C-alpha cells in the first residue's frame, strides 16, 4: 500500500474523495484552507464538484441541496465558520440528511485566534444549532486517524441519515505525518427518500424539516432519538492506554491526547501508575469506556485546550463516583507534557 507524507487538511480532502464524496462546498478560513485548495485541484478530476461558496451559510445550504439528491456531500471550516453553518446544520439534521462537516478548530470566542483549540466541544456535541438533535462527532488524534474516521463518518451518516462532524484542530490540520490510504469498500446505502427526480416511478419525495402539527413534530424528533440510542449502543469509541492498574487516569482527546500520552509515559517512568482514556467519538460520548477505564483509579484528570468542556461529560459518566480534576489551556497555547505531568503529581501521583 502506498505511504505518503501528508498534511492533515489535505489528507481529509483526499480521504473524502476516496470515500465517494461527490460534492464539496467550501469557503476560505484559517486554519483549514488547504482542504479547499486540495479539493479545487482534485475534485473535478475525480468526477466530483468543487465550489467555493459566497459564505459559510451558502456552503452548508449547498451541502443540504446536494445531500437531498442522495450524493455524498461535505463542507469544511474552522470555528467561526462553523457558527455560521449552524443554521444549515440544524435544518440538515431536521431533514434527516446525511453529510460530513469538518471543523478544524481555532481559538474563540469571536475571531479568537488562528491557533489550535478545542473550545468547540460544547458546540459540536450539544448545541450545533437550534432544536433537539445530535451529530456524530469524531475526534481524530493523527493524520492517519483523520483518514480512517472520515470514511466511517460518511458511512454512518448515510446509515443513520444524519450529519457527522470531524472535530479536528489547527494542530492536526496543519501537521504532516506519514499515512496510508486503506482500500475503501464503498458502503452503498440505498436512498429511496432522495429528491433526485421521481421519473414517474414513485410518488414525489419531500425533504423538509417543517411539521406544523405538534404531534407530528414530536414523533419525528422521538424517532430520531430512537436512532440516537442505537448509535450510542453501537458506535461509541475510545482508546484505553495503561488504564488497567492506573491510580490516576487522564482523559483527553485529539491533539491534546498525544501530549497527555507523553505525560502518562513520563509518570510511569517515575513509578506513578497513570493511564489515559482517549475518547475517539465525542458524540456518542464513550461513557462505558470512561467507567471501565477508571475502575482502578482514585482520581481522574481531564485535559483540554479549553476552559473545561468535555470535563462535564466525564463527570456525568462517572456520576460523582470519584474526583474529576481539570487542566486546560485555551486557543493557541498547547499544553506541554511536563505541565500535565506536574498536574498528575499535584493530584497525588506522589503519594
Amino acid at each position, binding site marked *: 500500500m502506498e505511504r505518503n507524507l501528508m498534511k492533515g487538511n489535505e489528507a481529509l480532502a483526499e480521504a473524502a474523495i476516496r470515500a465517494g464524496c461527490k*460534492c464539496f462546498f467550501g469557503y476560505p478560513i484559517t486554519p483549514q484552507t488547504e482542504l479547499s485548495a486540495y479539493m479545487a485541484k482534485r475534485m473535478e478530476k475525480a468526477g466530483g464538484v468543487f465550489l467555493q461558496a*459566497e459564505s459559510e451559510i*451558502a456552503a452548508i445550504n449547498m451541502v443540504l*441541496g446536494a445531500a437531498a439528491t442522495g450524493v455524498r456531500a461535505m463542507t469544511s471550516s474552522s470555528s467561526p465558520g462553523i457558527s455560521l453553518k449552524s443554521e444549515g446544520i440544524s435544518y440538515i439534521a431536521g431533514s434527516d440528511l446525511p453529510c460530513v462537516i469538518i471543523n478544524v478548530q481555532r481559538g474563540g470566542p469571536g475571531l479568537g485566534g488562528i491557533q489550535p483549540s478545542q473550545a468547540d466541544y460544547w458546540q459540536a456535541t450539544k448545541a450545533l444549532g437550534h432544536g433537539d438533535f445530535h451529530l456524530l462527532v469524531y475526534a481524530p488524534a493523527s493524520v492517519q486517524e483523520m483518514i480512517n474516521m472520515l470514511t466511517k463518518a460518511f458511512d454512518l451518516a448515510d446509515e443513520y441519515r444524519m450529519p457527522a462532524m470531524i472535530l479536528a484542530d489547527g494542530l492536526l490540520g496543519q501537521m504532516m505525518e506519514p499515512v496510508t490510504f486503506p482500500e475503501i469498500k464503498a458502503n452503498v446505502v440505498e436512498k429511496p427518500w432522495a*429528491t433526485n427526480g421521481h421519473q414517474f416511478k414513485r410518488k414525489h419525495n419531500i425533504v423538509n424539516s417543517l411539521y406544523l402539527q405538534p404531534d407530528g413534530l414530536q414523533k419525528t424528533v422521538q424517532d430520531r432519538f430512537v436512532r440516537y440510542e442505537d448509535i450510542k449502543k453501537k458506535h461509541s469509541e475510545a482508546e484505553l492506554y495503561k488504564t488497567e492498574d492506573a491510580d490516576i487516569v487522564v482523559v483527553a482527546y485529539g491533539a491534546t491526547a498525544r501530549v497527555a500520552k507523553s505525560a502518562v509515559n513520563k509518570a510511569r517512568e517515575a513509578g506513578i501508575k497513570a493511564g489515559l482514556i482517549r475518547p475517539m467519538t465525542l458524540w456518542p460520548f464513550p461513557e462505558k469506556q470512561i467507567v471501565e477505564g477508571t475502575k482502578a483509579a482514585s482520581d481522574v484528570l481531564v485535559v483540554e485546550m479549553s476552559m473545561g468542556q468535555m470535563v462535564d461529560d466525564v463527570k456525568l459518566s462517572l456520576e460523582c463516583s470519584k474526583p474529576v480534576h481539570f487542566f486546560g489551556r485555551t486557543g493557541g497555547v498547547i499544553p506541554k507534557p511536563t505541565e500535565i505531568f506536574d498536574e498528575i503529581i499535584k493530584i497525588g501521583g506522589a503519594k
Partner: protein
Amino acid sequence: MAVVFEKPKALADVSTHYCPGCTHGIIHRLVAEVIDEMGIEGDTIGVCPVGCSVMAYNYFNCDMIEAPHGRAPAVATGAKRAMPDKYVFTYQGDGDLAAIGTAETVHSATRGENIVIIFVNNTTYGMTGGQMAPTTLPGQVTQTTPYGRNTETQGYPIRVCEMLATLDGVALAQRVAVDSVPHIREAKKAIRKAFENQKNKRGFSIVEVLSTCPTNWGLTPIESLTRLREDCIPYYPLGVYKDITAEEVVK
C-alpha cells in the same frame, strides 16, 4: 366529451392554505403548466422558501426540498451541481429572496447557476402578518411601518430584476404580473422561457412576478389587483431586463 381545461398534472390534488384572492394559486398553476408542457415533472426538483409558499412542497408533484429562509438559491445550487441533468427551480417571496437571502440570490446569479427562480413580489412579509419587506413601496403602511415606509429611516425598495440584469451570469431577468389575463399569459411565456433556458444550459433565469396580498394589504381581492396595477407596476415596471436569447437574435 372533450376536456378543454383541467388541473395541471404537476399540481397535487389538494387544497392549498393560501388566503382567498391570493395570486400564489395562479403562479403555482403557471409553473405547473410549464412543467407539464415540457414533460419534465419526473426530472424536476423544486425548492421552497420560508414564507407563505413554505408548504409549496405539498402542492407540486415533482420532488421538493424545503430550504432555510433565504437559502433556496444555495440549496438549488447544491441540487443542480449534484444532478446537472435535472431541472431545478426555486419559488421565493420578496423577504426570502431580497432581504435575508440577498447574498445567495446575487451569487447564484453571478455564477450563472443553471436554475430557474420564480420570485413572487407582493411587497410584504405575508406569512408573519404583513411586515415591511425589502420591496415595500415608499409610504406603504405595514405592521412595522405603521406610519408608512419612510425612506429617510427605512430606505428604499430593491428592484431585483434591474439589479440582477447587470450581472454577466444572468440569462433572463424579467418582471411580469398576474393582475390581468394578458399579463398572466405574458407571465407564463416568461416562465416557459426560463425553463427552456435551463434545458439549453443558458444559465440563471429569474422571473419576478408582481403579486397581491389581500389579507395583509387590507383590501379585497379586486381592490388588490387594482393596487397592483396603480401602485406596484409604476414602481416596478414590467418587462425584460435581460434576455441573452434576444441578444443572440440581434447578433
